[in-house]
């Protein structure tokens, strides 16, 4: 996984609450068996217009505006990423080039999925997010600097906003660690749990596929 320490980049505002995963990546792109290549379909329904049977960029959509070229930080509203568990949503965001999303709140599953893909989902208070929306609209080329080790968002005007993140999440992002490797290091504890649990609740460990009675 890509590490995340300090990212300084252009910010794009997406001013809608409850942006759901269907909006981030529509279902027709969930048929892929790969993780890559989803970036061109990110926000597909908002990003493109149909013109004479062909898709053209919708000039009104924020990511199509030249001033947001090279964007890596998305500024969003509350409950971002609600809906389905599809990891295709953070895959599409990452493939487009996003490294961080700032919002007052995130849906739980989406939040986790971001962390697994080197994207920092960063919560700031609603009034701070409001203020950032204001600033980004007012200043073309607006950038933010996100310092994960220091847990700080810094504006170019040198305002600083602290943000909270769980220590283990931060550790894994900063070092780009693979969860499975870490967990397998606890293999003995897993084995011990299974041994104990199979005594206490043996019905959970009696290999089920042996019987076939039908329903």
């Amino acid at each position, binding site marked *: 996984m890509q590490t995340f320490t300090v990212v300084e980049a252009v910010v794009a505002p997406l001013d*809608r*609450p*409850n942006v*759901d995963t*269907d*909006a981030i990546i*529509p*279902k*027709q792109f*969930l*048929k*892929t*068996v*790969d*993780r890559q290549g989803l970036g061109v379909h990110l926000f597909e*329904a908002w990003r493109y217009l149909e013109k004479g049977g062909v898709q053209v960029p919708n000039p009104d959509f924020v990511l199509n505006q030249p001033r947001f070229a090279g964007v890596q930080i998305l500024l969003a*509203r*509350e*409950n971002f990423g*609600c*809906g*389905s*568990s*599809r*990891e295709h949503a*953070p895959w599409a965001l990452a493939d487009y080039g996003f490294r961080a999303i700032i919002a007052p*709140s995130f*849906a*739980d*599953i989406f939040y*986790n*999925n971001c962390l*697994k*893909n080197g994207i920092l989902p960063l919560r700031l208070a609603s009034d701070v997010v409001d203020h950032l929306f204001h600033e980004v609209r007012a200043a073309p080329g607006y950038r933010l600097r996100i310092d994960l080790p220091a847990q700080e968002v810094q504006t170019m005007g040198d305002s600083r906003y602290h943000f909270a993140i*769980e*220590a*283990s*999440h931060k550790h894994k992002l900063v070092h780009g660690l693979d*969860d*499975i490797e870490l*967990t397998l290091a*606890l*293999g003995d*504890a*897993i084995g011990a*749990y*299974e041994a104990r649990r199979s005594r206490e*609740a*043996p*019905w*959970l460990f*009696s*290999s*089920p*596929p042996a*019987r*076939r*009675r*039908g*329903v």
Partner: protein
Amino acid sequence: MSGKTLYDKLWESHVVHTEADGSTLLYIDRQLLHEVTSPQAFAGLRAAGRKPWRITANIATADHNVPTRDRAAGISDPVARLQVETLDRNCAEFGIEEFAMNDRRQGIVHVMAPEQGLTLPGMTVVCGDSHTATHGALGTLAFGIGTTEVEHVLATQCLWARKSRSMRVWVDGVLAQGVSAKDLVLAVIGRIGTAGGTGYAIEFAGPAVQALSLEGRMTLCNMAIEAGARSGMVAVDETTIDYVRGRSYAPVGALWDAAVEAWRDLHSDADAVFDAELRMDAGAIAPQVTWGTSPEMVTDIRGQVPDPAQAADATQRKGWEEALAYMGLQPATPIQEIRVDKVFIGSCTNARIEDLRAAAAVVRGRHKAASVREVLVVPGSGPVKAQAEAEGLDRIFREAGFEWRDPGCSMCLAMNADRLEPGERCAATSNRNFEGRQGAGGRTHLVSPAMAAAAAIAGHFVDVRHWPAS
């Protein structure tokens, strides 16, 4: 010290290891796999040269992409076919049991697993699908995960998690005739909003919840995610035990007796304290209909489309305006005057036998309105389909001009050929009314099976409580 909640009990019995910051390695008893969110997980496993930790804890089925008719002909969409075949191949390679597309036990993963006894009380259940919350109806801790986590569970049988806060939704009273678990859960979401349960595990309890069948409880827990909660659950009682008894993969003999004894403790203690409590009165709930593009945009059948001018703040006003524009609705339109083009009865929310019976009871001896282009009835699984046919429900639907299909997710998310055309309006028994969910430009109104069936007959929404019995 206060007693334990059901959630505490389920959580504590699955802790393998806890880090200093509270992040916990949780043991997973059952992982359900389907074709859409598993290919990259298997690919990851293969690339790292890893094997599944405990093969028999996994079970797979194809549901999202499968066609709902002419199955013998296979899947015509080559991309969908590749995904389904990839699941078949992965299961064969790793030795995981699969109910493949033409297996009679195949079905929507959340209908199939409880039906086969693969979901048992007291388990932790995960799936790469947000509606995994459904299984909480059996007194399990069940939640949706992403694909990287699917791979993690395959490789380690565990997941890193952090304990949620607990919320109890206590429902007093009795649901009126014609009002179902679907109406109840839509009313809850209308009250707390789609983010109201974020960070919580919700336990549904109280007399009105206990009075529900297990199917009704599944409908309730299914939509916990639409209230923002990763998991919903209901305590184990006789209804639960009766439901599980005799299922294919349920324990038998002495193991069954031991299991039942343990399951009887799967309820919140009388003195348990919740971080949040919500009380609802079942008797006050009328049939619900969503009018917007988020499940919280809901009112009851006597209501009308709201006026954005009356929104609480600017953000809500903008949200309402966008929703009405997308839905093609004017403020103050009575819900009963909204006409539908299509009707979908199906999905993991409402495609169990009881749902089909409720719909059939409304339809019997009637015919769909001429203005309604298509009514799809898609059973949740092979066994549901067989049962419905044994009861003659398929005939009732066919005689009404409805289409009787093969099991799968179908028009819940329209990954297969079943979908809305731009601008089409649909009464749907599924769980999400997001923009484009049932097809680009499609407009979805979420309702119960009885309400969907009645809308198909009348051509517009009607109050099924006053629907003449046939």
